[in-house]
């Protein structure tokens, strides 16, 4: 059970209020029309799936309904940091 801090509401709330929304910091291709099938496929479907620190998006679905980023350990499930969209993490996973 996660106890998640929503940076928009400024409060800790229980996991049930949130939904995990997958890997964070995926940049949309600057020029989609010139993407190869491989580049486009990797943008859409290929994901980091680390055993350890992971940067991911969550949404406060039954609260403020806003997105934010979480840095979390995928083995211990410990949340290391919560930060807003557009900000950079201070705890950085290897390979990022």
């Amino acid at each position, binding site marked *: 059970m996660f106890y998640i801090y929503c940076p928009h509401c400024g409060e800790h709330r229980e996991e049930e209020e949130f939904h*995990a929304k997958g890997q964070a910091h995926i940049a949309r291709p600057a020029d989609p029309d010139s993407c190869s099938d491989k580049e486009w*496929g990797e943008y859409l479907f290929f994901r980091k*799936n680390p055993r350890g620190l992971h940067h991911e998006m969550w949404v406060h679905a039954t609260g403020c309904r806003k997105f934010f980023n979480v840095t979390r350990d995928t083995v211990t499930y410990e949340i290391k940091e919560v930060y807003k969209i557009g900000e950079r993490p201070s705890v950085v996973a290897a390979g990022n």
Partner: protein
Amino acid sequence: MQHYSGFGLLKHALNYHENWQRVWRNPTPKKKYDVIIVGGGGHGLATAYYLAKEHGITNVAVIEKGYLGGGNTARNTTIVRSNYLWDEAAHLYEHAMKLWEGLSQDLNYNVMFSQRGCLNLGHTLQDMRDIQRRVNANRLNGIDGEVLDAKQVQEIVPILDCSANTRFPVMGASWQPRAGVARHDAVAWGFARAADSHGVDLIQQTEVVDMVIEDGAIVGVKTNRHGVIKADRVGCVVAGNSGVLANMAGFELPLESHPLQALVSEPIKPILDTVVMSNHVHGYASQSDKGDLVIGAGIDGYNGYGQRGSYPTIEHTVAAIVEMFPIFSRVRMNRQWGGIVDTCPDACPIISATPVENLFFNCGWGTGGFKATPGSGNVFAATLAKGEAHPLAKPFSMFRFHDGALIDEHGAAGVAH
């Protein structure tokens, strides 16, 4: 290999069952193999068995970081069915179903495959339309299936709440009589014993820590206990840890690993003699031969490798079961656990060559790999033996995510793996 039979059982009874042979050897690995299979779960062991049996390749090692069949093979809810919507998936799972039907004889090991049928319930008009479409698709593919109305469902499962007063009334179901359950551990042990008898080395308690790659081709794996073991070809069948091994080889997969939880109740008298699944209410249950209810539902939504999930997911699962079976409301749950499932964006597996030459992956089975165990091993063995995809495995290349030929089984599979 010691042949198992009723007569053998009688013979061993005479000397108090003290002289049974060990079921498999515990060998020290050789320096080099024709094929190394990473991962000693059901799929990996089945791959090794079919490599030896159908392709005559016996210089094979299965490297397992824990013990045989100790990962998702030990953690799943043992349901076997083949009623998938799309041709590619239906053919693959039906291939597995046909192998299941002769598996105990083939392996000389009782995998307790019980074709007790499987109901996929429909609770809305759209559910029923989807069920009709799927059953029609199944029948065109030669897979058994029927569309039942609520009354027929009630006849098959008298304890199911089919009244009109529920939140999501049962309107009908799809029914696959050939579906059922199998004993999960026995499947791993049966394949392990049969593979071992063909000369396959089963290397347990040995973790692959790196891949040895030269000029874009794999030449071996580095292990924590036995150093580098060389191989002409390597097949990875490591379920939830596929992403980790792909990273070692220097590429990414279109996979995310999630916890998937299951529960068993205390053993009760026989009451449920089939498998009941509901995508809409989101849960499924069957009863094991021991008497415990085997219960599951959906994955936890976040990525995780912790082999455990969150309480809200358990609560949703149990709520769904009680909604369908009010009679179970006072049954106590005995155990609850989580496995790590590697899910693909299109809910179909990856059986594929990779950007690294001679390295193959069989992964992405997500929440429903157990039912495919013999079929998956069979087509992956052919793929490893020939170096090119078996015809049934061809549509499941990882490169389908580049060319867009996805096999969208989400609608058909849903929760009900």
